[in-house]
């Protein structure tokens, strides 16, 4: 029973950590708009956490620049299990227009397993909410698998 309760909790209260790895801020603004009154992701329990220790879902936006690579890897390591990595926008998937730049070391799946990728440049808030909902499902399976 307790396990079920915890699962319910995990389903209802995913906390996000947003990491910007050299994004143009387009995706960041869309992510912020998700928690504004219009979309209000808090009704599903989403909350932006201040530190990786509190996070369940890590949201990464931007191609991985060489400056941010190390920081990204370190921060990802500091998130407690179970955790899910979500990439927002095209940049973490393919480096988008930054592809081939000397200072870009993306894409993101070189450094960690990406569970959900939300496409778009930038993706719409609805798409982000949808992606986050999928991430919650994956979080639940990960918790069960433990």
């Amino acid at each position, binding site marked *: 029973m307790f396990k079920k309760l915890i699962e319910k909790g995990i389903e209802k209260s995913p906390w996000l950590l947003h990491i910007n790895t050299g994004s143009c801020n387009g995706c960041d603004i869309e992510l912020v708009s998700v928690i504004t009154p219009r979309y209000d992701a*808090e009704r599903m329990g989403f909350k932006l956490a201040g530190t990786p220790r509190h996070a369940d879902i890590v949201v990464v936006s931007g191609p991985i620049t060489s400056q941010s690579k190390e920081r990204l890897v370190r921060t990802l390591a500091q998130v407690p299990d179970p955790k899910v990595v979500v990439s927002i926008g095209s940049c973490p998937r393919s480096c988008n227009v930054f592809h081939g730049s000397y200072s870009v070391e993306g894409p993101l799946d070189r450094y960690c397993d990406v569970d959900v990728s939300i496409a778009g440049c930038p993706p719409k808030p609805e798409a982000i909410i949808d992606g986050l909902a999928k991430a919650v499902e994956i979080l639940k399976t990960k918790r069960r698998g433990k």
Partner: protein
Amino acid sequence: MNNILQFLFYILIFPGFAFCVVAGLLIAGIDRKLVARMQKRIGPPILQPTYDFLKLLGKETIIPRHAARKVYLAAPVVGLLSLVTVSLFIPIFNFSIFDKPVADLIVIIYLLTIPGVALIIGGSASGSPYAGVGISREMVAILSYELPLVIVLLTIGRKVGMALDGNITFSLKAIVDYQAQYGPMIAQWSMIPAAIALLLVIPCKVGSLPFDIAEAEIEICEGPLVEYSGPPLGIFKLNHAIKMFIMTSLFVTLFLSGAGTNFVALNVLIQFALAVVVTFISISVLKAITARLRVEQTFKFYWTYPTALALLSLVLVWLGL
């Protein structure tokens, strides 16, 4: 044997552990919902803090390399225990688990300091510099609100003591008796400034906006909580919720109490409803309309306006009004 069972019931179920947890989580959820509605959002379900707590129980706990392990893990539990203990001492209308007055207000002041101290010690033990900044802010916050809080409580002691037997009283039971006899404390107009001062103290005591300087997640990554994860973090969040309930409940007992009805359950419901109202006035509204203050602004604020209000009340009471 019967006695012990009864005592265990008090401690574990009502008004101790279980009741505290349920009431605290509910009141925290209501607060979040209220704030959301005031900001034209739908807001999280009322059970959201419960879900958060349950989820955190299922997460992994990471102990940083620089942390002092035992203190780090013990701090939240100690805070929770002291909060539960406080809840045993607060009478709910005429219901009090102790026959004779056990806890004075001063005991409660000190016991209510322990969760704050636990947060500080825990954060300090985590070894993070963010936590270092956070604990310094938390401590200044404690220093700030303690002055008006103390004056308010002394005022109430003087008021009740003068009416009852001319002696000083810090007994909560005597305060409730007084209110049963003379009507709620808030109806005494000399006590209104003190009530306002206490209402202003509550947000800082529970660490909500605009006084959540210690746990500012944007500036200092939630301050003392920065390194906490999993169950200990959950217990800290639970502490926060219970503290909210206990502070508002204490306000109700101090200012809005009275004889109550003959049914304990009904009394509890009334107390809870009043606590929700107090939460709305003192925590939710402020949270919805203000931005975070700086630490020295907080200090200045508390040592001027609430202190002045509380002192005004003390002077009025001293003059026999």
